[in-house]
């Protein structure tokens, strides 16, 4: 990406509930986890339930694969792949 292009990134109005495509892999922060080992991810107001993302993934950046997505309600499911990063402030 050229220097000039970097200045032009983000000149847009981004949806508060972004859409996801089934099959896509992305890395996201896990907000919360259930006791049964599933995590909750919020991308804006889009809500993903991540299977296999237990308490150890909370407030960490994880790679997930989207397995289901409902455009109308901006909700979906994803599978946990791996932890790929930490929060800016580690607890």
């Amino acid at each position: 990406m050229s220097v000039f292009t970097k200045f032009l990134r983000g000149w847009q109005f981004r949806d508060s509930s972004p859409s996801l495509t089934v099959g896509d892999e992305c890395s996201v922060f896990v907000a919360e986890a259930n006791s049964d080992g599933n995590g909750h991810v919020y991308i804006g107001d889009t809500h993903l339930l991540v299977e296999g993302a237990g308490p150890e993934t909370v407030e960490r950046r994880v790679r997930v694969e989207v397995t289901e997505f409902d455009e109308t309600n901006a909700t979906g499911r994803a599978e946990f792949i791996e932890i790929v990063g930490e929060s800016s402030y580690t607890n």
Partner: protein
Amino acid sequence: MSTDNSDSPDADPSESFVQDTGEEGPRIEFYGGRGMSAFPIVFFILWAIAQTAFWRISDEGGLVIGILVGLIGGMFFVRGNWKTYANTIFEGMTQPVAVTAIVAWIWAGMFAQLLQDGGFVDGLVWLAQTAGIGGALFPAATFILAAVFTTGIGTGYGASIAFVTLFFPAGLLLGANPILLFGAILSGAIFGDNLAPVSDTTIVSAVTQDSDIGGVVASRFKYVIVAAIVAFGGYLVAGQFMGGLGIGGNAQEILVAESEPIGLVHLLSMGIVIGTAVAGRHIVEAISWGIVVAAVSSLALGLLSLGDIVSFNAPADAPLSQPLEFLPILTIVDDPDAIGVGGSLIQGAAGFFELAILVLLIIAAAQIMIRGGAFEAILDWSIENLATNVRNAELTMVGSAALINAVITINTAAEVAIGPYISKIGERFNLNGYRRANILDAQTAALGYIFPWSGGVLAGYSAMQELPGEFEWFDTGMLVTPIDVVPFVFQGWLLVAVFIIAALTGFGREYIIDRESEEVARL
């Protein structure tokens, strides 16, 4: 730790979930509950408000003592062994956030001082003088020039002082309205403080949000420029309606005395730092190139001597002082108090030494709050009551950053203190590091130059108080009272407004899935 079996993504997010409880690190228990772990940082904030807002003492050394006393006081509320508390102080101080900010500040400080000592402002004075701008247009032109200057040197306080000293008296003689002119200077300072890669607040905003500085600068340009275009228009229009003091006199005399077109060469070193940082080079590399170009061009064009950049004042009885006296960087001094090392590089770096200690201690206090649970309690409350969706989350980030910067005069300290909160709220909604850093720094830059107790206003006002002693025609009645300038710091108010609108409309919003900021290891 609560549990919930809601395995549906449609479930109510407000239901209780397992939160990260920091199992990786030791917990600290406090008498009075987890809220008491906020004692050091709350004590510091109250100290900072008393010192900087009530007593108007912008002394970072005083703030260092404030946080130290807070950390000592907090220890008395710890249940059981104090060792964990003490170790957590070290744990906080060794966080990458603190170290990276300090390293970048020191580099930025050297670069900024070279530009200041190398006559950058004199080049801009030449531009103003050559353009022959009248009183009505002078505030708008001053805004642009102050913005360019601050984008180069990074310090809005320095820009406020330089521009109040040079442009303010000249503008008054040209017939510009003094309140509007002071507002324009502060607005320019905000522009640069927010945008410059060598600005201390830019650096803090990037490292606290795990983002590279170049990427942060490029991504925030859209907010800064939108506010600046409207602010510029505001100064143009207001300049037509707000009259001057009708002093008369020759403004050119003031400008010509400080006019040096060759000072504009520093636009080159400024451009190199911005260009290389945005291109993705390490910030230390980018600023180092700026330092080299600024030093070489200043030496080649006679703006600085080698001794201005670095100088050693040695005593006559030192073993090699007499034989090496011919060196341009060495001076033999008789006065024992004059012995030392000076010059732009040391002066620029030293300007950040106190701030470096302060940031280490603030981050240590923040870590105590995290380990003690107060931070989690505040976050939980915020998520339940304020940041209930992404729009509210961004408004909460704008509001909290604005509030803390409105009450603490030294905006860098305020920014460091609120950084973890902004990070956690933003990460919850997967807002990327650039967006979080931009929300944080816009409020920091803006609110640091608006109110009568703000550091930028105080810096400019202090310089203004020297003017009656410098110019016969300048009487104390011409001084702008800090309270009067509040509505006229257009860039500050507009920048806050831009972010409120951006939070409401999604303008510029980026999620981590859209673009990940570069890793913090690269700054």
